[in-house]
């Protein structure tokens, strides 16, 4: 595959992510923070986000399996998830977190379970999408090209 084609593909792919609402301008701003002093900034942040989110999601799943649910703690975790997702611009996850927090406040077990499933689902989608985007970028870099803005 030609380099130019790869670059076009990346641009299209990225646009589709914005268009479908997976990412918002925060991600753009994150990309702007990356410069020659800090070349892997986005990847670092995003992988930190993956790490963090997976931990949080695991904890949430466990918490929901308990007989007695500590909704306050759950709320704090969802709040964290919301914070980090908005930091990287994972818009859909953030919005789901807002709903999730409402359920936590209402102490609604079923709502929480449903929400957790949705969050997990959205999270895995955004993760796959981001990973494939990074792969594309890596391919371009390996081919000796530069990443189009």
């Amino acid at each position, binding site marked *: 595959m030609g380099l130019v084609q790869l670059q076009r593909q990346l641009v299209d792919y990225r646009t589709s992510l914005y268009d479908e609402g997976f990412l918002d301008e*925060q991600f753009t*701003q*994150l990309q*702007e*923070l990356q*410069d020659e*002093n*800090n070349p892997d*900034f986005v990847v*670092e*942040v995003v992988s*930190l*986000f993956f790490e*963090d989110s997976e931990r949080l999601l695991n904890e949430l799943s466990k918490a929901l399996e308990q007989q007695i649910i500590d909704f306050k703690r759950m709320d*704090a975790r969802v*709040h*964290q998830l919301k*914070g*980090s997702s*908005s*930091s*990287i611009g994972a818009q859909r996850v953030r919005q789901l977190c807002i709903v999730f927090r409402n359920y936590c406040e209402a102490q609604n077990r079923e709502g929480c379970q449903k929400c957790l499933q949705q969050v997990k689902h959205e999270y895995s989608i955004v993760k796959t999408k981001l990973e494939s985007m990074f792969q594309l970028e890596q391919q371009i870099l390996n081919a000796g090209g530069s990443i189009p803005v």
Partner: protein
Amino acid sequence: MNWFINGEFKDPKAAILGDSGSKMWFTCWDEISNFSFKIHHQYYQFIGSKRVCKSWWRKLLFSWVIGWTLASVWIFCCICSHATEKRKETLASMCDERARMLQDQFNVSMNHIQAMSILISTFHHGKTPSAIDQRTFARYTERTAFERPLTSGVAYAVRVLHSEREQFERQQGWTIKRMYTLEPSPIQEEYAPVIFAQDIVSHVVSLDMLSGKEDCENVLRARRSGKGVLTAPFRLLKTNRLGVILTFAVYKRDLPSNATPNERIQATDGYLGGVFDIESLVEKLLQQLSSKQTILVNVFDTSNQSYPISMYGSNASTDGLEHVSHLNFGDPFRKHEMRCRFKQKPPWPLLAISTSIGILVIALLVGHIFYATVNRIAKVEDDCHKMMVLKKQAEAADVAKSQFLATVSHEIRTPMNGVLGMLDMLMDTDLDVTQLDYVRTAQASGKALVALINEVLDQAKIESGKLELEEVQFDLRAILDDVLSLFSGKSQDKGVELAVYISDRVPEMLIGDPGRFRQIITNLMGNSIKFTEKGHILVTVHLVEEVIDSIEVETECSSKNTLSGFPVADRRQSWKGFRTFGPEGTMHPFSDRINLIVSVEDTGEGIPPEAQPRVFTPFMQVGPSISRTHGGTGIGLSISKCLVGLMNGEIGFVSIPKVGSTFTFTAVFASGSSSSKEYKSQQINRQSNSVSTEFHGMKALVLDPRPVRAKVSTYHIQRLGIHVEVVSDWKQGLSIINRGNNVIHMVLIEQEVWDRDLNSLGLFINNLEKIGHGTPPKVFLLSNSINSSRENTATGAYDLTIISKPLRASMLAASLQRAMGIGNKGNPHNGELPSLSLRNLLLGRKILIVDDNNVNLKVAAGALRKYGADVVSATRGIEAIELLTPPHQFDACFMDIQMPEMDGFEATRRIRDVEQNINNCIQFGELSVDACNNVSNWHVPILAMTADVIQATHEQCLRTASAMAFFGVNKFRFFPTGAFVFGCRVYIESYA
């Protein structure tokens, strides 16, 4: 309810109907009570708490109505029975009277007949031959008939035994005949043929009395008893009227009163009979009494109880009142009675009806009034309740509106700040002239918008009651100087003279809210500037006590004697309505409250009278054209009024079109003593205070013929510690200087004077230089900058320094320093920061970021690093406290508010405590300043990071940590674009 009232009005009807109505009456009440119970039920559900009371009133009302209805019925019955009783008595007495008379007359007649029987016994049987024959008897009876008015005829029958019949018949010359048939009598044991008869009844002569059934019975009973006996009433033979026959027996000899019936029968000689016409008898009697009309009389023979035989009177049987009187006609065998009845039916008991109905109506009316009153009260209470609910709703809606407004304004302000910051930064970059102009325009509009939003936010805050005033110590004079400099540019452009005068008696330091005070002043002055094209704007500050004292004395306030010579609206008119000046003025001379009265006087176009009443109404302007020509939203004055209210003051104004307006307000502050450390000292304009010492002991001469203006100048010069003398022309001035006992260091000449007599002043200045008191005084020209074009030509020849108005202490001091050569140590502050490129915005700054979220931490750190900052990260509040314990190298700290274990507020509070401790230690020498990086006052700027926009958080930030700045609303939105970082820079600068 109508039904209920109808039901009530059925009562009297029911009462009239009496017995038959009572049933209906009770059903009525049943229905009423059922119905009203339903009403009650609904009513109770509605009212609830007042239930018991209501039901009590209801019961009272019902018992009242029932009670009075019964009472009126009872009264009706009473009166009726009383009337009936009376009627009965009347009837009884009339009846008895008639009966007695009848009886008497009858007895008289009877006695007469008895007397006649004795006559016959004496003259017929006692003499032989008989002294009486038929003719004699007939004549006698005829002539004595007047004595027996009741008898229509008398006859005498003799007792004849069968054995004597033939002889008797022969003697009399006729045979004994049977009654009715008139045939010769068949053979009997004895006979009683009539031998004498009155002419009227002569047809009965020779008839055998024993052959008639009634007569026979009568005859037998009479001779047996020896008394007069009566027959039952029967139709008389001839007249066909009802009559009775009275029969007496005539005996041969006088019999003892206890003789046996047999002896009496044996001794019987004959029988005397009289016919009584009862009907005519009674009729005559009633005619005598002449009250035939009123009563109806019936006479009955009641010998046979079950079949009374009517003797007189009609048979019309009317039920009703009847009285029975017994008659005694002397025959024990026969019983008679008289029954009397009223001819007319009893009249309607009108009195009883009207009385009872009247009482009932009164009672019902009273009940109705009572009912209506209770109902009315209930209704009013209901309405009141509803009103309360509505009021609450309206208030809630109002609060909600204000809150919405506050939130929205806040939301708008945040991005606007971003826009402004960006524009600011844009201006730092390389732009050509056109671009720069665009940016300036954009920035000016942006600032106007923010100002407007701030005003709206203020208004909303005031309306929702969220606005609270600060209590800090501040310097009133410094604030007014600030405001003056704010407007000086504008006033100079327009050529309007701007001046401030503060009375000496106003304390140096006050405690209150300087920001809000400044806002009021700015507002009023802004308005004045807007509408004034020539003349002046003068702000005066006095103590209220001063003004009250001078209110009568101050007569010199003529329209000519003003700052610029233009007439003004008399400011005394503007505080006419103030309570403070009223008789109940709340002045406490002993308290430490300082009552200030501030007037802003201008010579503008004034407010048209029709617009004056709505000056303080929000969004009201004089007319639509005003906002077009002068801009503004029209809420400034409304906000000012609210703020003045919060300061326990009042605001008022007077305005004369084409002359000017004067706004006056009062405000209450506490007196701030500079020694007390309780209040955070506002550190504005520290320079002006420090500067003032340099001129202490100097003397100045002000040359100004206009007292008000001279007073203002004096005020400002005195603030620098300079002694001032005022003269109205240069000759006076010269004489003062020549007196020589005190050295004049400077002479300040008003521009107006200068322009007027330029030549003589030139002479004056020359004279000054010749007087040999060491250095000659410096000459200054006080000038409105409008004339600045002239200054070159006018002042060129002399050694003059021009001081441009408005006068301010700091500006004046600077001018004097420059001219007099006193050491100018002032450093060029006022932030002429070197233009930084974006990249170096935070270069060299050491910043701590505290956030529990790793991702956020990383992003924030990345953003700050991008702008050159040296970033340290911490994930927990406790770490931050350790890192920020002095001495440290951090320039600022970014703190997440929401963190587990210890939140941002708590962490900030602890950091402040630690800093305070260290500072105290340094102050008391327990810690050397060297050990703490030569910083004696530790106070690291802490910026809160949060995504929550709510008002509460902002307020909490302010409350918790005196310097926890509330930044950026959304912590990420402006990160990489720079505005946020720019804001940080400004913030850190202001603290560093």
